[in-house]
């Protein structure tokens, strides 16, 4: 080896060593900010609210003095709804931008792709909007490895329960409905959702007459509605997120006389009314929060502040992302450190009243480890309906402001 080369190598090693030293010493600085990486779908309405809500929470916490004097810094990445882009963003967030925790995505496929990376890079990771049961089941199956992942939104199983609980009161008890057809898009999150529906609908007294799964690329829903009408159900139970505007508009244009009730993620967006030219009128959907609905004292102020700042109400994932920044900050405070394992321990003990209810996580021995707990006094979800161009809560009773009503083309069979 010639001298010049070895000299260059030596100085390179020297620089690397200094860099490592600097990196190792930096967390000790008290004024060093708490960095949270936010990876989301900037072009999708549900995803766009995620970084905005996270920033709002960070600004509020910073204005109040930060976390033990440390400011929160939100570092955003657009993943273009792609798993590959998300994985690259996650690596960059951890390796280059040195984030302490990551909040990412409303798409189950993306979150499932990130979960192993949270394990490999030992970085606490919370999703504000994905629903697949597999996210928390993987944590349960290999706790030591996957414990860095937290499911900050309801699992598909819990979503199905929430829809069934709402359907029992609203459809069976009030409107005496007896039968249903399940209509859901083919995606990771709807598999467990459909299993949940199949199980709980008959229990509340709705006979499942047919079960239609369709490709998320579907553009013409006429054959699907036609088939559903042929089965003569009292209600269509939906499981849709990637699609929403198109089936809703075609439901109205074709005057399908059967109400839609269930999960319809796009309907949770304030812009849904405009996107569908008000065809959304009468659509019943499950949500964890909604404009003007005081699930907790924090819900309405958050939604209003969000609207003041960004011009529209947040999507469902906006509410959860906002809460997540708060309970991550709370966990850092309780842990007294940003060390990943200590942070995971602290996050497991979360008991935080957020905008969507009281957030606690299932433990190591529950089948849905690290998913938020569903139930009375915790998070139950709501049923909302598009009425007169607005989203109004119709269930449960304590937050409901109005009764359900349908457009004139809906023919209730009882």
């Amino acid at each position: 080896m010639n001298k010049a080369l070895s000299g260059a190598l030596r100085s390179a090693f020297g620089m690397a060593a200094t860099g490592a030293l600097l990196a190792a010493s930096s967390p000790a600085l008290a004024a060093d900010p708490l960095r949270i990486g936010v990876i989301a779908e900037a072009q999708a309405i549900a995803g766009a609210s995620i970084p905005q809500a996270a920033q709002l929470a960070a600004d509020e916490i910073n204005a109040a003095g930060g976390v033990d004097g440390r400011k929160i810094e939100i570092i955003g990445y657009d993943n273009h709804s792609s798993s590959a882009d998300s994985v690259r963003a996650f690596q960059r967030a951890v390796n280059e931008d040195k984030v302490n925790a990551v909040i990412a995505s409303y798409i189950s496929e993306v979150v499932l792709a990130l979960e192993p990376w949270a394990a490999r890079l030992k970085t606490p990771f919370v999703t504000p909007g994905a629903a697949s049961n597999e996210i928390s089941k993987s944590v349960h199956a290999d706790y030591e490895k996957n414990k860095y992942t937290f499911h900050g939104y309801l699992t598909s199983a819990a979503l199905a329960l929430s829809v069934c609980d709402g359907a029992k009161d609203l459809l069976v008890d009030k409107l005496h409905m007896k039968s249903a057809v399940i209509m859901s898009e083919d995606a990771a999150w709807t598999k467990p959702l459909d299993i949940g529906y199949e199980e709980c609908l008959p229990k509340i007294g709705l006979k499942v007459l047919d079960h239609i799964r369709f490709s998320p690329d579907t553009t013409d829903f006429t054959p699907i509605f036609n088939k559903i009408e042929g089965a003569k159900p009292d209600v269509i139970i939906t499981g849709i997120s990637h699609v929403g505007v198109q089936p809703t508009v075609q439901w109205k244009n074709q005057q399908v006389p059967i109400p839609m009730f269930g999960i319809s993620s796009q309907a949770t967006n304030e812009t849904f009314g405009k996107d569908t030219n008000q065809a959304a009128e009468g659509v019943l959907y499950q949500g964890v929060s909604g404009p003007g609905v005081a699930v907790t004292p924090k819900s309405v102020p958050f939604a209003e502040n969000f609207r003041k700042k960004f011009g529209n109400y947040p999507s469902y994932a906006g509410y959860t992302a906002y809460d997540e920044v708060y309970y991550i900050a709370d966990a850092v405070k309780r842990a007294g450190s940003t060390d990943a394992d200590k942070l995971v321990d602290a996050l497991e003990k979360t008991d935080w009243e957020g905008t969507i209810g009281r957030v606690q996580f299932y433990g190591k021995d529950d089948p849905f480890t690290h998913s938020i707990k569903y139930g009375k006094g915790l998070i139950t979800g709501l049923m909302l309906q598009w009425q007169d161009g607005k989203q109004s809560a119709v269930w449960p009773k304590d937050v409901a402001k109005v009764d359900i009503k349908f457009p004139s083309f809906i023919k209730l069979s009882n």
Partner: protein
Amino acid sequence: MRAFQILIDGFAISALYALGATGFTLIFGVSGVLNLSHGAIMVAAAVAAWAAASVLNVGTYAGALIGVGVALLTAFATYFAVVKPIQDSRRIPNEEKEIFVLTGTLLWGIMIQELIAYFFTNNAKTVLPIVEGVVEILGVRTPKNEIFTAIVCCLVIALLWLLVNRTRTGKAVLAASMNPRGVTLLGLELTNIYIVVWAIYGILAGIAGVLLGMFLGVSSYSVGPLTASAFSIVVLGGLGSVSGSLIAAFVVGYLETLTAYLVSPAYRTIPALLLLVFVMYIRPQGLLGRR
């Protein structure tokens, strides 16, 4: 009952496909350009119509006109900013120009798609129907707008036929598609004919886009599938043959509708694509192709 349903639904969708594919095949027939930004132009028209009517509240008719106008502008932009510079370039060898045009229009289409997603999100938008309500035809509850769509498509295609066969400009276009060299020898400026064709194309794609936005709704994700469906219809019918494209549009439209009703909506596009592969094997020039 189900047969009537398939007949009615299939007709509306086929007419829409026909309209979308006609402009696409016309451009190819006259100037040899395969415009892969086709889907993007249709989506731009629909989103513009939606934005004008639902955000700026200009009304349904004005919104639809604005949509068609935007498609016309985008078509001209495609020609002057992408296609013409490649065709006029001295640095690109003539035999490679087709590939350059393909790549150029494809990238242009992606740019339009990303711009739409950036400004209007990738959520689907629907254009407010010009006629609302439903009527019963042969026991099938049919949205009036579906009938309106089918009628407009047929009218526009008939107008196009009149334009091409009965007017001087149209005859020049037809001549250019048969023998571009001959047309220039007759003293007609080929560039002017191209501009006319791109104008016709822009209007056709615009009307198809706005109608699609009313009938089914579109999002920035629709760009790829729309280009692909126009492309396969045109290849099936025979590249450059307008009547071939019309027949192919109805074959594909009905095949898709039949599959969606009788097999499953999830497999809608598969038989049409298999048919395309099959036709490519036994008749590579397409149903009515000349070359």
